[in-house]
């Protein structure tokens, strides 16, 4: 069934580097429309960098990223802007614009890409903030709310335009378990109601097993991906490094695939 639709995102032969320092090489995977896709891997292995490559904030050192079957890497300015319109991105630190209130933060993308009036923009912004549990905080500045709330506000901003693809970099890091759980529910709800494709960088296993359809596992030692697939199935993966990650290091038996 999936074969006929082009993948929402295809990563082909992607090598990422900062100058001469190669972060990851030879990444190859597809993200299918409507899937919740997890990027997993230890701290500092290049998960955020992979996300930055997928949204065009870093240029690949080699390889290409495709969105909906079209090359994003080689797209011209206009095409790129059209593709950007379909992304919502939440950065690891939140990255709210500190000089604007929460409602203005969420409203800026709306003002940029829609013909809505100021009052309508505010209405939509209030709704998006309410979805992440920030009703009543519309006129607060980012510095006036807690870190976890900033994170949720950043998610609201990423959802502002009802993007086809939502990128979330460690959305639940620093959230209390209940908020983290609510966030999982929200992600599942977005997918169910709007068909949003969600790409999440996370290492919260509970969240991974709740929401994930598909995932990629990055390994810093070999500087490439070790596995692609549903995380629940990857628990029995042939590579012990993958199994250990998904069982919080409890699986220490040596490689079954090799045995």
């Amino acid at each position, binding site marked *: 069934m999936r074969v006929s639709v082009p993948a929402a995102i295809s990563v082909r032969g992607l090598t990422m580097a900062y100058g*001469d*320092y*190669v972060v990851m090489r030879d990444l190859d995977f597809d993200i299918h429309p409507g899937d919740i896709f997890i990027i997993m891997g230890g701290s*500092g292995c290049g998960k955020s960098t992979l996300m*930055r490559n997928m*949204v*065009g*904030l870093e240029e690949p050192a080699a390889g290409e990223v495709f969105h909906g079957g079209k090359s994003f890497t080689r797209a011209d300015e206009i095409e790129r*802007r059209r593709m*950007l*319109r379909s*992304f919502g*991105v939440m*950065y*690891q*630190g*939140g*990255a*709210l*614009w*500190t*000089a604007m209130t929460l409602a203005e933060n969420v409203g*800026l*993308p709306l003002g*940029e*890409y829609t013909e809505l009036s100021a009052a309508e923009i505010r209405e939509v912004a209030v709704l998006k903030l309410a979805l992440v549990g920030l009703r009543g905080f519309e006129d607060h500045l980012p510095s006036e709310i807690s870190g976890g709330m900033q994170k949720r506000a950043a998610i609201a*901003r990423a959802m502002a335009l009802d993007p086809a693809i939502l990128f979330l970099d460690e959305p639940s890091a620093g959230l209390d378990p209940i908020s983290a759980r609510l966030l999982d529910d929200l992600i599942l709800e977005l997918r169910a109601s709007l068909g949003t494709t969600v790409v999440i960088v996370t290492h919260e296993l509970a969240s991974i097993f709740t929401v994930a359809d598909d995932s990629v596992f990055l390994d*810093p*030692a070999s*500087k490439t991906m070790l596995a692609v697939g549903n995380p629940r199935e990857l628990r029995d993966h042939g590579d012990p490094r993958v199994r250990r990650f998904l069982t919080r290091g409890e699986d220490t038996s040596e490689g079954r695939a090799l045995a």
Partner: protein
Amino acid sequence: MAVSGISCERGADGLLLVRLTGTFRLAGHLPDFEGVRRQLASAPPRRLAYDASAVEDWDGALVARLLTFEETCTAARVEVDRAGLPEGLRRLLELAQAVPEKEGARRSARHVPLLERVGSATLRLRDGTTVFIGFVGEAGLSVGRMVRGQARFRRSDFFLLLEQCGGQALPIVTLISFLVGLILAFVGAIQLEQFGAEIYVANLVGIAMVREMGAMMGAIIMAGRTGAAFAAQLGTMRVTQEIDALETLGLAPFDFLVLPRMLALSLMMPLLTLYADFVGIAGGAFVSVTMLDIGPQQYWDQTASAIGLDDFVVGLVKSSVFGVLVAIAGCLRGSQCGNSSAAVGQAATSAVVTGIVLVIVADAIFTVIFNAIGV
């Protein structure tokens, strides 16, 4: 206390047996593996094994030394057999090596020879100039987009910036300009008194303030105040990924952040300069009236006869260019900012230095040009 020691002996089949005896604790020196190392270097064995049966007590000292020692072994391609080590020690060693050091992550401080430093400084200067010219070019394009109504930034940001670059700078501009006028008058008065030409203090102060010092002091104050603030704002936005967030929205960070700052400063600078001119002249008048027996009216008439409209134009043209330069220095340094809070501090500092250097160089060029065209 038993004598602690490390000895080694050769066994069959290319084996080197390292024998550890006694107590190894952090209290003393780290255990000395020199002897074993020499053995390793003189005739590399194939295998290395430990005999620690005579070790009485050990702590981190031994673990630390063994770790570095085994690195030498690995480098020399000697296979190490840890079976002879105490169980706990073995586990600690394994733990210490479990997380492999990331390739390329180590930064070693290296002595750089003078010639190389000079060379790379030259290259940096060249790159820096290229980047600066590129930034100025981008600024020109951005202004072009604004004229065509394509550049987008928030009006409310712009008005805040106007206030920041204008009204909020008034107190410091007042203070500095008044003092500069005072100093000029003072120095001038002492010289001119010798010829009985005290009244020309008014000319000196008026011309100096209007043509030079008003614009110059204003620019230096703004470089320290606003240029640094711009660099810190943009630098922080880079660190917190706020600039990335603009980019993925398809908003050009240059139009959104740099353009309003450049506009605000180049609009406010001439106004501040005009204000500084008058405050400076007031400073000169203060000295003349209190020290030189020149009446206020007389001083004012003399000033009015000394300075013409062209002097004002010279000062104002300079000041708007200085405003653009200070804004560019601040925004350029801010946008080059690295990824840490220390980098934000450096960006602010270098924005001030760059701003002042640019302003003074530009002033020198202006002086030559105005001299050539005779205004």
